[in-house]
């Protein structure tokens, strides 16, 4: 079984919950309890079409207001794939939730109402998908039943989408599908109403695992990056004076015998063993949680980075990064925060705000003096001690960090090294 992580984004009335409901319903992936709930709500409302949206409304406040506030996780599987959907609200107030939802996914689904075409939010959704370098973006032009399944209307919107993509960045793989979640057209089943559409249904696109394979390959081919989470010492039987470095491979691969360097201590050594529970491995790949031991006794602690000798990351005490601000408290030039990237932490000062981006028209404001909730800004950051990040564009896992406010302990921003 292949694990596929998807994020969905849409505006309040785009029918996102209905789409997810439809995807599960037509894949026969709802539980009996969920089916009963849909039945019950459909009857209560006296609606002609199934009330599919009820299965994603989680919190009391959301049910009362009829909107999605927080990222919800939905799980379902088909014969060949397991899906995790991070469903996030689309409104500007919830940009932080959208970034959070999309950050662990490879594919992002962006919903567009066929009657309205592209909205401000569509720009923001795609901007974020592009900022996060999603592997694939699927634009679902929804509610086609309400425009009489009109091909011309679909083409009009498709042209708008392509214009937007070329403006924001066309270095991203995308598809456009005309659907009706309410009626079930082109979600799982091919539509009988839109014979003019020769492309794949949403479900077929989600089942294409080509991008996943490429993604893994790309991750393995990147430079090796390993954050030490913890150091294990033990003297138990069979492990005299064992010293191992536990962590998760962020990118690349490492094999026994490889020459490595530890940062920031800049000590060189050779990989003696790679362990995963009782197994001894020859190689560790991106994503693996393993324990590495070295041939030399060198000083390594939590927060150290292990890289291959010939692929060292740059030492950074000052760098540019794009921040997405996630906290109610704003920040300004001079704000002091904690940077956390995996197990690494450093004190940080916002040295300069280069510009903030208005995602609805892509205009840059170079005079921005404060950073408010949901702002996307380019900044220059200065650190109290060096970190070893790559450019996010080259290495997603080692190019990203969060910022923590030392006063409140809240996670206030996510940053992408540029």
């Amino acid at each position, binding site marked *: 079984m292949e694990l596929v992580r998807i994020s969905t984004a849409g505006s309040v009335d785009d029918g996102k919950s209905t789409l997810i409901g439809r995807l599960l319903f037509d894949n026969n992936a709802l539980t*009996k309890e969920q089916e009963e709930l849909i039945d019950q709500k459909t009857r209560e409302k006296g609606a002609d079409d199934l009330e599919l949206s009820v299965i994603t409304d989680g919190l009391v406040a959301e049910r009362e207001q009829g909107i999605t506030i927080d990222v919800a*996780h939905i799980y379902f*599987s088909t014969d060949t794939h397991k899906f995790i959907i991070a469903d996030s609200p689309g409104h500007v107030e919830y940009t932080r939730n959208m970034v959070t939802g999309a950050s*662990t996914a490879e594919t992002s689904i962006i919903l567009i109402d066929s009657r309205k075409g592209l909205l401000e939010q569509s720009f923001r959704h795609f901007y974020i998908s592009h900022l996060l370098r999603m592997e694939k973006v699927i634009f679902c032009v929804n509610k086609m039943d309400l425009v009489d399944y009109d091909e011309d209307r679909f083409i009009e919107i498709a042209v708008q989408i392509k214009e937007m993509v070329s403006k924001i960045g066309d270095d991203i793989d995308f598809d456009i599908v005309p659907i009706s979640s309410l009626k079930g057209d082109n979600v799982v089943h091919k539509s009988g109403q839109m014979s003019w559409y020769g492309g794949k249904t949403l479900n077929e696109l989600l089942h294409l695992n080509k991008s996943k394979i490429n993604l893994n390959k790309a991750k393995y081919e990147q430079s090796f990056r390993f954050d030490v989470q913890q150091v294990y010492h033990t003297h*138990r039987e069979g492990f005299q004076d064992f010293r191992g470095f536990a962590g998760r491979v962020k990118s690349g691969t490492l094999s026994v015998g490889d020459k490595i360097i530890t940062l920031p201590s800049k000590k060189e050594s050779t990989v003696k063993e790679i362990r995963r529970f009782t197994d001894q491995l020859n190689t560790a790949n991106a994503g693996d949680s393993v324990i590495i031991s070295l041939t030399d006794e060198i000083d390594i602690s939590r927060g150290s980075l292990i890289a291959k000798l010939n692929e060292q990351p740059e030492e950074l005490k000052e760098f540019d990064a794009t921040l997405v601000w996630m906290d109610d408290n704003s920040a300004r030039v001079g704000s002091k925060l904690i940077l956390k990237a995996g197990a690494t932490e450093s004190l940080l000062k916002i040295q300069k705000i280069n510009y903030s981006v208005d995602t609805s028209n892509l205009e840059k404001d170079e005079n921005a003096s404060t950073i408010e909730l949901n702002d996307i800004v380019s900044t220059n950051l200065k650190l109290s001690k060096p970190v070893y990040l790559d450019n996010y564009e080259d290495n997603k896992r080692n190019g990203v960090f969060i910022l923590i406010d030392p006063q409140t302990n809240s996670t206030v921003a996510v940053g992408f090294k540029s």
Partner: protein
Amino acid sequence: MENRHLYELENESIYILREVAAQFKKPVLLFSGGKDSIVMARLAQKAFYPSKIPFSFMHIDTGHNFPETIEFRDKLMKELGVDLIVRYVQDSINENKVQEETGKYASRNALQTVTLLDAIEEFSFDVCLGGARRDEEKSRAKERIFSVRDDFGQWDYKKQRPEPFQELNGKIQFGENVRAFPISNWTEEDIWTYILQEGLELPSVYFAHKRKLVKRDGALIAHSDYLNIVDTDEIVEGLVRFRTVGDMTCTAAFLSEADTVKKVLHENMASKHSERGARIDDKRSESALEDRKKGGYF
């Protein structure tokens, strides 16, 4: 690899367990003896091997558990070599901190919260590891991996910390503590498939067995001294198993002949019913679990 997705989930859970051990001073793993906590124990073993699991386990014992689960719990703790702390809801009742519910549907499930919060204070635990999964229930679907609780153990969804790229922020103020959920992204099917793959043992109540039962509102409940039996209840005997194992008073049994992990896995998936359907206390209202969580329930 057939179970490639399980390998990915296991990597993720091990990463989370290690972050918990590294970021906090005094973690504890909440262990109920149910299948999810048994999987958690296995993951902890894998995360820290060849070192020992660096924290204690704790069971909040309602006193209404299946005896089979308690027996199993003690055996497993011995095998793993971890310390088990047990705190009893009965003690909280005796100290007049909580009131025993009365009537036909009396359950001690909600009472656990008080005993749990007291134990957190007694031992100064700053993080409790739990085996909750997001697929279990709709308010769980919105839970973070690190969930910060205030002095009163309360959950406020508005104050949840974003966790982009699974960057986990465990910084807390004195008095606050965190509930950490390493198997957030596992589904019930994943749990059973993993139990099969790892050859894990489970308490016998998970498999088909003959049992004396009480038939009530169309559900089958284990016959026990803890259940307030009323006139309309019917006492029957049947071949059953339990799909989730909570208190004897609030977990419903299924008629089943599935006596192996493989058969249980197959039968669960074919049934299409959700496992929380067997939790009688969740059916009290549409937001039963969310209400309990806000009050500090696990």
